[in-house]
């Protein structure tokens, strides 16, 4: 008893040992904020101020211009194919990995993460080596008049490759931590596989799923390195928004380049806002069910 008391007295009196002096706090906050605003806030401001430098008219014109419009369409197409495919893959992989026990599981997870640890340039290179004119399948493709590299299919493939792990990586740990009691209960009560998925699993993983999808989409629309290698940069045909922005910038057409960049930046801001919202939502859910968390921890 006496010991506890003296401890708490000490704690009350010893705040000097627990907190930094005011001046140190102030300094630390200032340095951190200076670093973050220099590297994060300033670039954001630059994008929009450069894009609107010559007024709204010029800005709108640079977006409506045919090559720009074609780049926007191609970007939407590539993301529109890559995101749903990787979504289906992510859900399937997470189901197989989280709900069942089998040997080699962690190796499989490492393989799924592989595209993250490969340089984007190498991701693109791989497809060139496979489908390019001097590649393994190149002569056969040329004989059958199929173009993959320097054409739209190559861009779609490279986009799928670089965004491959996003959804799976978000869902696997989430579903593993949730266990499968609820699904098993549903099964004992007579539910079928799809019923279990739609009624039990999906409501549990929806925020994680959404999180994975928006990150996947942001990367799909913004990928540069891999797409640049397979694209061939044909204006109006094989340029995505980031590639078009780069070309314009290298041609010293800075306003138009930043107009393209501003589109991607707006996408980024929406992505970050959604991510913060989902973080907040899922934290609320966790707080509402603290008992379950404790049970899991025990």
């Amino acid at each position: 008893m006496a010991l506890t008391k003296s401890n708490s007295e000490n704690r009350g009196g010893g705040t000097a040992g627990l907190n930094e002096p005011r001046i140190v706090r102030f300094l630390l906050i200032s340095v951190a904020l200076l670093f973050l605003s220099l590297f994060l806030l300033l670039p954001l401001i630059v994008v929009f101020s450069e894009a609107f430098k010559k007024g709204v008219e010029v800005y709108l014109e640079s977006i409506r211009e045919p090559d720009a419009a074609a780049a926007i369409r191609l970007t939407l197409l590539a993301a529109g194919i890559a995101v749903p495919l990787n979504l289906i893959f992510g859900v399937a992989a997470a189901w197989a990995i989280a709900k069942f026990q089998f040997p080699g599981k962690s190796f499989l997870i490492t393989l799924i993460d592989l595209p993250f640890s490969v340089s984007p340039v190498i991701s693109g290179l791989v497809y060139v080596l496979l489908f390019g004119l001097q590649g393994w399948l190149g002569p056969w493709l040329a004989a059958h008049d199929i173009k993959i590299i320097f054409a739209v299919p190559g861009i779609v493939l490279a986009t799928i490759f670089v965004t491959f792990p996003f959804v799976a990586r978000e869902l696997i740990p989430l579903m593993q931590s949730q266990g499968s009691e609820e699904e098993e209960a549903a099964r004992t009560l007579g539910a079928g596989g799809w019923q279990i998925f739609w009624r039990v699993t999906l409501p549990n993983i929806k925020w994680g799923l959404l999180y994975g999808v928006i990150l996947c989409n942001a990367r799909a629309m913004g990928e540069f390195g891999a797409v640049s290698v397979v694209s061939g940069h044909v204006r109006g045909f094989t340029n995505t928004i980031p590639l078009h922005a780069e070309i314009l910038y290298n041609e010293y057409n800075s306003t138009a380049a930043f107009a393209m960049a501003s589109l991607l930046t707006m996408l980024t801001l929406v992505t970050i806002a959604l991510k913060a919202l989902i973080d907040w939502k899922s934290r609320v859910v966790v707080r509402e069910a603290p008992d379950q968390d404790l049970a899991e921890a025990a």
Partner: protein
Amino acid sequence: MSRPFRQHSILPGFGLTMGFTIFYLSLIVLLPLGAAFLNTFTMGWTQFWETVTGARALASYRLSIGASLLAASINTVLGLLAAWVLVRYDFPGKRWVDALVDLPFALPTAVAGITLTALFAGNGWLGAWLEPLGIKVAFTWLGVVVALTFIGLPFVVRTVQPVLQELDPEIEEAAATLGANRWQSLRRVVFPELLPALLTGFSLAFARAIGEYGSVVLISGNMPMKTEITPLLIVTKLANYDYSGATALAVATLMMSFVLLLFINLLQWWSRARYA
């Protein structure tokens, strides 16, 4: 302990989901990667060695690895500071700053590249201010470091933040009770707890920086031997239809980042074993 036996699951769908996972993984990732790297075996050892140890290649490794290490180190120090400030202190607009940390994850690298170039070029907002001081950033190796620092910024913050949040304040209280001053308890008690997360953040930032292409090519100026990173050299070879040269460099890059990551994992394992 709560579930002593569950070898067989009563849930359906293993065959379907596992089959699709393996099929899709092989089709998109494993077969293309495998086929590409079998390609290097068609070139002889001497040719491979000459390509990966050419003067231009060596200069590019030096820049890529050096700038990546420097950028990851900057991010480790300032990322630790940012995580500390975001977890421990209160200030207006904290939630906004916290959300903004993810910007480099979500911002396309090409956008980062042209924006940083515009900022640091001689007529840019920061460049106009730095160049009279004799500091040239855009189109020099410093620009490469700036770009790599930008893209690696969230890694350390996001790996350290949760550990710092979970850290039991009682251990700091105990240290204070035992007579440690603030600096001592931070250095001896808090820091060892954060070290594994710091190393993880460092290695993630480093791995990302080594492969980065988009943001760097725009700001570096791409002068051979001077500001040419390895990924760019790969693209240059590819553009000249030197497929085997590009593959050889790609293999060399993969091996190097693999060895470095292995080393960092060992370091992490050592720090866990030592302080756990």
